[in-house]
């Protein structure tokens, strides 16, 4: 940077020349950058168009009943989306019930309670958990969590909660181990790090003076979190939770291993079920090109895309508003 004046004088005369060449280069460079940007729009539009047009046959054959029908019968060519949409929503719901408190606890601990040296180490560990490929979660779930659920957790839950009026029906049924509850638990472990790292970022970014004033008034850490940090960062925290929800909705491999793949709709959380993504992964290889079944799977894909698109759009809006402060 020290050579700036001399460089300017040296270029004084051929400046005209550089300028025209520069404009030409700028035009080409600008076009390449624009094409790359527009390519992304093209890919996203392509995914949407291809899935909807591929699923069109199923949509037009079954009409709106496709979404409410629980049928999935390749022999009589009757397909419906209700069971897998139900499974997707239930597993995602279970995942959120477990993941949000845990993610919040870890984020709160990292920001307010951990010794700094330990906090850095644990934060990296949590981020590494987010980097583990989903198929590993699936395998671990299948070989470790499923037997544990079948032998210990599910019989215990049935014993203690199975007869409670109202919620008892959720905890009855044969303890297979594979099922909606296991799927939801694996998803919870997968999305906790995502939600946690958004929360940690948000909690750290709050102006120190806000927290210090509350501490100065004698508030405890929990009171500061509850009455200062959370109200201030509410939207960004929601954005982080929605981001995790988006992941859980579309997760395939982790769920496919533990969901049990059965087309049933029922109250029991222990019963095997399926999600949109697991159904596609398991049934796609068995559907021939051009069949109605393939079209039904693509229609399911289109529905999944719409659900996750809405979730992710909400997450984006929340996060933008939440961090704009």
């Amino acid at each position, binding site marked *: *940077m020290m050579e*700036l004046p001399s460089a*300017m004088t040296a270029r004084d005369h051929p*400046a005209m020349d550089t*300028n025209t*060449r*520069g404009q030409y280069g700028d035009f080409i*460079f600008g076009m390449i*950058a*624009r094409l790359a*940007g*527009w*390519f*992304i*729009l093209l890919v*996203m539009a*392509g995914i949407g168009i291809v*899935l909807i047009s591929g699923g069109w046959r199923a949509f037009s054959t079954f009409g709106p009943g496709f979404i409410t029908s629980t049928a999935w019968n390749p022999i009589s060519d009757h397909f419906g989306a209700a069971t897998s949409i139900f499974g997707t929503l239930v597993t995602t719901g279970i995942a959120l019930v477990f993941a949000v408190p*845990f993610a*919040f*606890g*870890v984020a709160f*601990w990292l*920001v*307010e*309670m*951990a010794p700094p040296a330990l906090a850095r180490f644990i934060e*990296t*560990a949590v*981020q*590494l*958990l987010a*980097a583990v*490929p*989903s*198929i*590993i979660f699936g*395998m671990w779930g299948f*070989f470790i969590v499923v037997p544990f659920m079948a032998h210990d957790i599910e019989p215990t839950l049935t014993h203690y909660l199975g007869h409670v009026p109202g919620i008892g029906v959720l905890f009855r049924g044969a303890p297979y181990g594979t099922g909606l509850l296991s799927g939801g638990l694996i998803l919870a472990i997968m999305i906790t790090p995502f939600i946690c790292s958004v929360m940690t970022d948000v909690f*750290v970014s709050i102006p120190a003076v806000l927290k*210090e004033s509350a*501490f100065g008034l*004698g508030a*405890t*850490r*929990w*009171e500061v979190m509850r009455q200062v940090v959370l109200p201030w960062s509410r939207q960004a925290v929601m954005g982080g939770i929605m981001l995790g929800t988006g992941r859980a*909705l*579309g997760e*395939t491999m982790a769920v496919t291993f533990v969901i049990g793949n059965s087309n049933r709709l029922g109250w029991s959380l222990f019963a095997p079920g399926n999600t949109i*993504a697991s159904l*596609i992964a398991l049934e*796609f290889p068995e559907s021939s090109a051009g069949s109605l079944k393939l079209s039904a799977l693509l229609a399911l*894909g289109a529905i999944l*895309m719409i659900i*996750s*698109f809405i979730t*992710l*759009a909400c997450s*984006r809006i929340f996060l933008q508003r939440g961090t704009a402060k």
Partner: protein
Amino acid sequence: MMSAPQSHPADGSGWRRGGVQATRRRLVERLVSLLCNMATVVVLFALFSILWTLVTRGAAGLSLPTFMHSTAAPGAGGGLANAIIGSCEQTGLAALIGTPIGMFAGIYLSEFSQDGRIVTLVRFVSDMLLSVPSILVGLFIYLIIVEPAGHFSGMAGTLALAVLFIPIVVRTTEDMLRLVPRAMREAAYALGAPGWRVILSVCLRSARGGIMTGILLALARISGETAPLLFTSLGNLNWSTNLNAPMASLPVTIYQYAGSAYDDWVQMAWTGALLITVAVLATNIFARWWLTRNGTAQQ
């Protein structure tokens, strides 16, 4: 990282003041601390349980034949060589395709804000694409490439991975370019450099540490992806590096083997899982270390 308790008198007398309300506040605080500590322990326990399971079950299959032989029928003593090479080929090619597109799109987002709303739209869509369920990308590539071609191919798998790769690079390139100080751009412009030279030789150069990190993290992410490969490169039991034929990959092989009833296949699945996790985590740790060393030093 505020040290709240120190703001109370050092002997803790304010903290220990009596009264029902103070006791209640103290109890709530203790309870929340306890729950947070427990939450952290549980999450760490899950991480270590996964790693422990992988190491104890996968290590048994770590031997030379695993790396030398291709997958084989149960009991025939196959290895994972074709899956490893297939994974490397598809991931590497996807990175080669995705890096320039992603970087140029990132440049577009950060440097061409004069294009107005369409830039905002591209940024929004790129963020969507970042979290779109990867199985849908697999379906998309299946419909536009595999079905018209009539057969599964390594190229289709590569393209599916590239679609997942691009938005990660877009995001990091844009973020890193935004960190380049305004004064540096102005200095370059004042030297008479045309816009594209300023971006390529000054901005990108000073942001390269961060962008490299992004590329490495993206590489780690796509190398563990299974769902988009199921319907595109399908998997192949034999040694094949032909992009126009079905190609094996580590994640798909793990998926096929883990669900099988043969002990040696399950063993191979654990070994593959160990390999891929070690590769992914090592890349992540290296990328983070690289960022703290090179990313911030140049700003």
